[in-house]
């Protein structure tokens, strides 16, 4: 694993009696964009949440930048990290949610500037200035002082991306970033993610947008029943899937 930024090995997760993740192993190198495809319930989002330690893994491990996610090795076992170190880790990994999850009582600008001031202890003025630049970058210079409820879904999601970028993350996770959007708003969000990919940001994107995966992804993986059925170069995987189950899934969504 020379320059793998994200390395998952045999990650397992059970909810109740079902294996939601049944041994996920995958590698993402710096600057790569991994697109996770698959039907809902196949474990894509759960895996993404495990990478950010919003879910604890039941077996296997995830390394990000050479660091074990959510745990450390001591006396022959992986032991859970104290909350402060989990928080410090999360501060370096950005996450964008399907439902945006913008803080409703704060303006767009306050949403973006919050974590730098509260987590990184940055000065208010500096954080604000950078938040303004980030909002400009996602095309929302004229919406900085709006509350989330005054913004369209696409605008909210772009604020959410700016909010994640404000922490200067080494890795960005997207959990179905366009699934809650009206069709005409999907493009503006995908454009922002495309720009990020072009700038060399390492990303894992759970998505149903096959065209986007084909065009922006450097790797695509198809998941079913908590396993990666097939992975490879996105164009090849989507246009000429090797596996019968991948073919069946793609037939339904394309």
């Amino acid at each position: 694993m020379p320059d793998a930024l994200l390395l998952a090995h045999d990650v397992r997760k059970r909810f109740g009696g079902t294996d939601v993740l049944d041994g996920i192993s995958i590698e993402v190198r710096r600057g790569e964009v991994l697109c996770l495809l698959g039907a809902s319930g196949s474990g894509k989002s759960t895996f993404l949440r495990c990478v950010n330690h919003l879910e604890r893994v039941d077996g296997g491990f995830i390394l990000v930048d050479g660091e074990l996610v959510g745990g450390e090795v001591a006396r022959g076992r992986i032991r859970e990290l104290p909350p402060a170190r989990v928080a410090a880790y999360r501060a370096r990994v950005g996450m964008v949610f399907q439902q945006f999850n913008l803080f409703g009582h704060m303006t767009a600008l306050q949403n973006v500037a919050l974590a730098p001031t509260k987590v990184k202890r940055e000065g208010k003025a500096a954080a604000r200035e950078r938040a303004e630049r980030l909002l400009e970058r996602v095309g929302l210079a004229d919406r900085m002082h709006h509350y989330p409820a005054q913004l369209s879904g696409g605008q909210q999601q772009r604020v959410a991306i700016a909010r994640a970028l404000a922490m200067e993350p080494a890795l960005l996770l997207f959990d179905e970033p366009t699934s809650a959007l009206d069709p005409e708003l999907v493009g503006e969000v995908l454009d922002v993610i495309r720009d990020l990919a072009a700038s060399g940001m390492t990303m894992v994107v759970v998505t149903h947008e096959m065209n986007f995966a084909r065009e922006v992804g450097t790797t695509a993986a198809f998941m079913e029943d908590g396993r990666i059925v097939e992975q490879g170069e996105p164009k090849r995987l989507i246009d000429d899937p090797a596996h019968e189950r991948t073919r069946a899934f793609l037939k339904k969504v394309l």
Partner: protein
Amino acid sequence: MSTHTGTPADLAELARISERPPVRRRRPGQLVLTAVVLLLALWGAAVIAANPRFDWPTVGRYLFDVSVGRGIAISLELTVDAMAIGIVLGVLLAVLRRSSSRVARGAAVLYIWFFRGTPILVQVLFWGFAAALFPKIGIGLPGGPMLFSVDTNTAVPLFAAAVLGLGLNEAAYVAEVVRGGLLSVPQGQAEAAHALGLRALPTLRHIVLPQALRAIIPPMGNQVINMLKMTSVVLVIGVRDLLGSVTDIYARNYHQIALLIVACLWYLFMTSVLTVLQSRLERRLGRGVVREAAHA
């Protein structure tokens, strides 16, 4: 021809008459209701005016009496102190109830069970008679020697007993109000905060509580208004609040009704002020949400 059938055949005619807004149907029921309400109000006013035992001149004489004023001050102080205890302890209990520790959750549930499950009057009496239960309070082992102790009657004067009784009871109700508010904030808000690297306490303080406040303020306003009136139970342990001051006066002059009216007028005045303050606060906290309603 369409004029009396109600089904227009001539669209041009319909277009012409539809330029004016439709005539709203009269509601005879509404008129009757208004008349009944007005009559009842008049009748009530007449009853009050015609009965000399309401004794309005005495009401006027004592409305701004100095000892009534002192009673009002005590009532307000009790309200503020007891609410302060209730809110601090109540928020703590609400947070404990959401804790992942079963012991912490159990302790909060037990507290709420006890203080919500026994009458406030009994609780206040208990605190008034605390000295009978624990003659001395201090630090030491139960049944063993005390490192430090004081006489309960000197350490807990009646006013403090009243504040404790009201405050500890209030905490149980505030805990439920706050818990409801915390539940009203979607889980995704805390998750997004955690994903940014915020820890549990900053997430509560900067993200969850401010948004919970919107759901907390209306029932909390209720609690404050209730508390203002509930302070009158401290009469049973001899604290001279607003009600205590008027009972003192009528014990001397036997103008019970007039003095109780004085107390009622003051309680009404104070609760009215609180109601206005509450609606102002609600408007201020509406940031980001009132607009949502306008947006939708």
